[in-house]
């Protein structure tokens, strides 16, 4: 028995460890920097309509990256994410209208309010798993919308509320298309940076472990409550910051549009298509969905939603793990066939 064990041991030992072609550590940072510079250069080439469209894409990059922190890395699919978006927006509006505060003060406060709110509801809600967490967060977002609608003294209620953004009474002058382009570009870039730092850091390891097996993660000494709350709070902060900037950009906001569940659905779709639990996946997903959606809107106006829906279904069937994860697996296994990918992930 001893000799055969030893023989098996050397048999495995003979196979020299194959050095994997790992990408250099600086490459993602360089790609990110070049992308931001390219977006800066692109600005002068765009008509104002295009500029607004690209600005919206930057916002969705932020939202997708934010959702990915809790839904992708941690595996807690939050279906009430739009609640943080609306909360950030209304915090900004209330501070600017009633508090007469500058946008530059209201903006960070809104992000913090969203994060603190997420941490507070996270303590009970993050004990739920799977569908239960999704449904509970959906309820929180609906509740926030009702709350905003029912305190018209502060929020304008269902009729909406307007931020004074021109003239002497404005706390901060409206930034203009160029200003909001830069604002959302900066926000998107910071979001990607935050996601990259979390992913590489200790917290990222903890979140991925929780995603895979939460009990095993706790048994290794990871404080899972703390890690999940941090992820949820960071996710809400980015989403709230996006909502805040969006409110200032729109000037007049209504609860129906700010708490629209479709915004949450878009975040989820972008992350799933791009590749959840990765840094680049949500960014590519947001870009891809936005470009396809815009193309369809211009060329097939009547069939826009239907065609987009069909494309999303096909994409999810062919790439259930998302684009980035598919490419990574395909390169690793030297197998680029979509058919074998479908077979591998078939339930």
């Amino acid at each position: 028995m001893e000799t055969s064990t030893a023989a098996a041991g050397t048999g495995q030992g003979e196979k020299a460890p194959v050095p994997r072609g790992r990408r250099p550590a600086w490459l993602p940072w360089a790609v990110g920097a070049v992308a931001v510079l390219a977006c800066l250069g692109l600005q002068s080439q765009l008509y104002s309509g295009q500029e607004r469209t690209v600005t919206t894409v930057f916002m969705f990059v932020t939202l997708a990256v934010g959702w990915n922190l809790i839904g992708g890395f941690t595996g807690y699919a939050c279906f009430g994410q739009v609640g943080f978006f609306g909360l950030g927006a209304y915090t900004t509006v209330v501070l600017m209208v009633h508090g007469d505060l500058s946008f530059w003060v209201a903006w960070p406060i809104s992000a913090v309010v969203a994060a603190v709110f997420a941490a507070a509801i996270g303590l009970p809600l993050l004990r739920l798993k799977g569908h239960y967490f999704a449904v509970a967060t959906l309820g929180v977002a609906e509740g926030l919308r009702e709350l905003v609608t029912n305190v018209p003294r502060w929020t304008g209620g269902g009729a909406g509320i307007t931020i004074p953004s021109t003239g002497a009474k404005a706390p901060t002058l409206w930034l203009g298309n160029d200003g909001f382009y830069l604002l959302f570009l900066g926000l998107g870039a910071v979001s990607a940076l935050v996601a990259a730092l979390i992913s590489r850091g200790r917290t990222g390891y903890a979140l991925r472990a929780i995603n895979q097996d939460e009990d095993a993660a706790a048994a290794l000494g990871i404080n899972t409550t703390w890690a999940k709350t941090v992820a949820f709070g960071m996710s809400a902060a980015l989403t709230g910051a996006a909502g805040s900037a969006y409110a200032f950009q729109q000037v007049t906001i209504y609860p129906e549009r700010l708490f629209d569940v479709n915004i949450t659905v878009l975040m989820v779709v972008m992350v799933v298509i791009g590749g959840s639990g990765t840094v680049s996946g949500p960014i590519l997903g947001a870009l891809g969905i936005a470009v396809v959606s815009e193309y369809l809107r211009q060329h097939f106006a009547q069939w826009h939603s239907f065609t987009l829906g069909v494309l999303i279904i096909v994409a999810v069937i062919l790439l259930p793990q998302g684009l980035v994860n598919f490419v990574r697996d395909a390169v690793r296994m030297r197998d680029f066939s979509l058919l074998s990918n479908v077979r591998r992930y078939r339930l």
Partner: protein
Amino acid sequence: MMLEIDRLTAGYGRVRVLHEVSLDVGEGEIVALVGPNGAGKSTLLRAVTAMIPDRSGTLVLAGRSLIGASVEAVAAAGVAHVPEGRRLFPGLTVRDNLRLGGWLGRNKDLAPVLEMFPVLGDRLSQVAGSLSGGEQQMCAIARALMSRPKLLLIDELSLGLAPLLVDEILARLGGIAAAGTGILLVEQDAGAALEVAHRGYVLELGEVVLAGTTAELAADPRMRSAYLGGEWEADAASEPGGT
């Protein structure tokens, strides 16, 4: 003593599984815990790691009481658990699994565990879910060792593994214990467990029915007939008539 358990009672909700179990594990000692299915062996390990919050009695690790401690706090106190079914992170690489094992002490030095399980060195970039059963068990033990534990709890090491592989992995436990780690080994295969252990306990229906050194247990007639199976033929004549 590294681990002292005195009259520990634990269970799930209103169902008590362990009834006043007393047991101890010394520094550098391998203690086997054997018994039939449903005896409460896994429950005992889960009670030590606080995965079962309902427990009463005395539970002391290196002089520190673990009653009332959280799962993370028990891990921080120096207990590493290799649970039944291994519970690796299947979608993460072997390297990430091992580094997560070193989470608490920020231990990134894989060399000692790779020296113990050289096979894992060739698998570092593979996801843990793609490993063979034996490799997964080695990875699970290596992950637990990355926290440099005072006490290592291993649940059903042999489950689903070829006997040859079980012997190979069991043989490594001696080296781990020699470095000072106490090991509590839960095992269906009593014979294999007693081969490497210093002492053993037999658990039946949540109570310790037999305890002693490995030699004492191996010589005990109840142990031999029920778990080691060696004297089955000799007992066969009396068994049916006696009951």
